[in-house]
């Protein structure tokens, strides 16, 4: 089932939680709502689920306006951030709940319910906790039970609110791979909220970046990472260095150094901000072919796939640079060494209105 929201507005008093948000989720898609806290992503999810009410706009399920559809008739499976497992019920009863509350004519038999629950427990690999109570489970286990409970009623849409938010880093990694695999098999239209860009990039088919009640950008992970439409998206999706500079003749002039910027064409000299990801620098021991910035190594962290280097440029800027282990060995970097920095690429640049 596809979901579409059109021109949604939602206010909490003076605060605009959602400001004219429109979005379409395709059938079978796994979509991430990404943004900092307070960006409106959870509000949007709850409105789609029917748990909250929007002040203006439309929510459409497969093209049908869902305004008059009650939560229980929407066929959404909602997984809460803190799981919201029924604390007085066993795992079995929790998962069976959605089946048990169905109207008598369509309610499955006890036998069917048992089969279904067992099947779901197998799916989440937790058959052995069937008789336990929620408080006897770990966070990761509760999370999976919550998912199984939502899946029991065969939802047409799966909505997950920060599904891995309160889990350990390790469990979180495992579960998100599991979610991806599960989605690849089930193809349920899934919308999940997260503030973790890594999680969104790794799991989602498409990412919706939200900020202050607005959608900043919608696109594939590759798209939003490599072609951010603005500085916010760029910042939110990973570490980035930025410089104040003047752009002229294909070069960025920082202080009195002119750096070559690949693929940049400027007609007139302009003041600009330049955003460069840590891996878009090239380091060399001597001044390279093009112009380069002289800097001093302040700190090196070689643990990890990439080597992180902190530099202080002559012009005063501090740079975070990532190079491969191979480059690191070739450069034989040590602390306090002078290096030359040039640009391989630039993520994003924007012009600044100069006062003068």
């Amino acid at each position: 089932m596809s979901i579409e929201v059109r021109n949604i507005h939602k206010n909490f008093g003076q605060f605009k939680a959602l400001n004219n948000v429109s979005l379409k989720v395709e059938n079978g898609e796994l979509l991430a709502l990404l943004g900092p806290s307070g960006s409106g992503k959870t509000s949007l999810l709850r409105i789609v689920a029917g748990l909250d009410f929007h002040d203006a706009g439309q929510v459409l399920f497969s093209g049908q306006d869902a305004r008059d559809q009650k939560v229980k008739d929407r066929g959404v499976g909602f997984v809460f951030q803190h799981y919201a497992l029924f604390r007085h019920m066993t795992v079995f009863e929790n998962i069976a709940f959605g089946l048990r509350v169905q109207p008598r004519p369509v309610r499955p038999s006890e036998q069917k319910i048992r089969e279904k629950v067992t099947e779901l427990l197998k799916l989440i690999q937790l058959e052995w906790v069937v008789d336990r109570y929620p408080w006897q489970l770990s966070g990761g286990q509760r999370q999976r039970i919550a998912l199984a409970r939502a899946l029991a009623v065969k939802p047409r849409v799966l909505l997950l609110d920060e599904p891995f938010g309160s889990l350990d880093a390790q469990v979180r990694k495992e579960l998100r791979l599991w979610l991806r695999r599960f989605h690849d098999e089930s193809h349920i239209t899934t919308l999940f909220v997260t503030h973790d860009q890594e999680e969104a990039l790794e799991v989602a088919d498409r990412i919706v970046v939200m900020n202050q009640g607005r959608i900043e950008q919608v696109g594939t992970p590759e798209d939003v990472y490599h072609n951010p439409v603005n500085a916010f998206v760029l910042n939110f999706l990973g570490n980035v260095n930025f410089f104040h500079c003047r752009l002229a003749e294909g070069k960025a002039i920082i202080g009195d150094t002119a750096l070559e910027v690949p693929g940049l064409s400027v007609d007139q000299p302009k003041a600009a901000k330049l955003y460069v990801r840590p891996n878009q620098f090239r380091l060399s021991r001597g001044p390279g072919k093009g112009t380069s910035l002289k800097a001093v190594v302040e700190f090196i962290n070689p643990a990890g796939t990439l080597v992180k280097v902190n530099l202080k440029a002559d012009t005063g800027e501090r740079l975070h640079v990532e190079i491969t282990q191979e480059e690191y060995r070739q450069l034989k970097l040590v602390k306090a060494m002078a290096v030359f920095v040039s640009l391989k690429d630039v993520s994003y640049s924007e012009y600044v209105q100069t006062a003068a």
Partner: protein
Amino acid sequence: MNTRTEPVVIRRLFIGIALGFFGLFIVLPLICVFYHAFSKGWVVYLQALAHPDALAAMRLTVITALVAVPLNLVFGVAASWAIAKFDFKGRDLLLSLIDLPLSVSPVIAGLIFVLIFGAQGALGPWLRAHNIHVIFALPGIILATIFVTFPMVARELIPVMRSQGNEEEEAALTLGASGWKTFWMVSVPNIRWGILYGIILCNARAMGEFGAVSVVSGHIRGLTNTLPLHVEILYNEYQSAAAFAAASILVLLAIVTLVAKTVIEAVIRRGHTA
């Protein structure tokens, strides 16, 4: 040394002060009741309890509690649902209004019902014309009791419901449960210990109320005397052993109440230790 505790001397001193205060104010009165109740022996004790007036008073007290407590329970659940689950204007005002009867003197509580239902009161002539007895009869006693025990259940339930939030109910709704089913299958089980706890406290207070009931009772022996009033009557008849015997029933009730409460708390605590 542990940074969260005090030197042994101070600790002992504090325990000493607390227990001393406690002994003086709680334990001694408790012992006193039973001491006097049995001062004339078992036979007098049992005779006092088996007296028809005593039995009638117990019956009346039980009936009163049986009506007052369920009504306040229904109210408590409704009020806590509205207050804990929803966000509306005037919620704080409503909360303090619910607490109001706690700070109204029981004498005033009795008085207001006399002002309404008494023969000289607002509804008095009409009630008299239709031969409906409120004051000096069971309904008056029940009304006064309801008034003084009014907030007991609600006060227990509101914080419990608040602390639990709305997520479980929302989860139930997304799973296709109707509002009614959500309430019964999710909300009520979650507050069941709070409900029980509230009932127990409300009941203890309902059975023990003296001031308000005294004003509206009429003191007809064997008919409108509740157990606490019966205690007073016996006491005024110089039958102090019998008075304390009747009182001891109320004390026992209080103790049973407290034991039940402690058990409930233990159960709750076990449920929370994960």
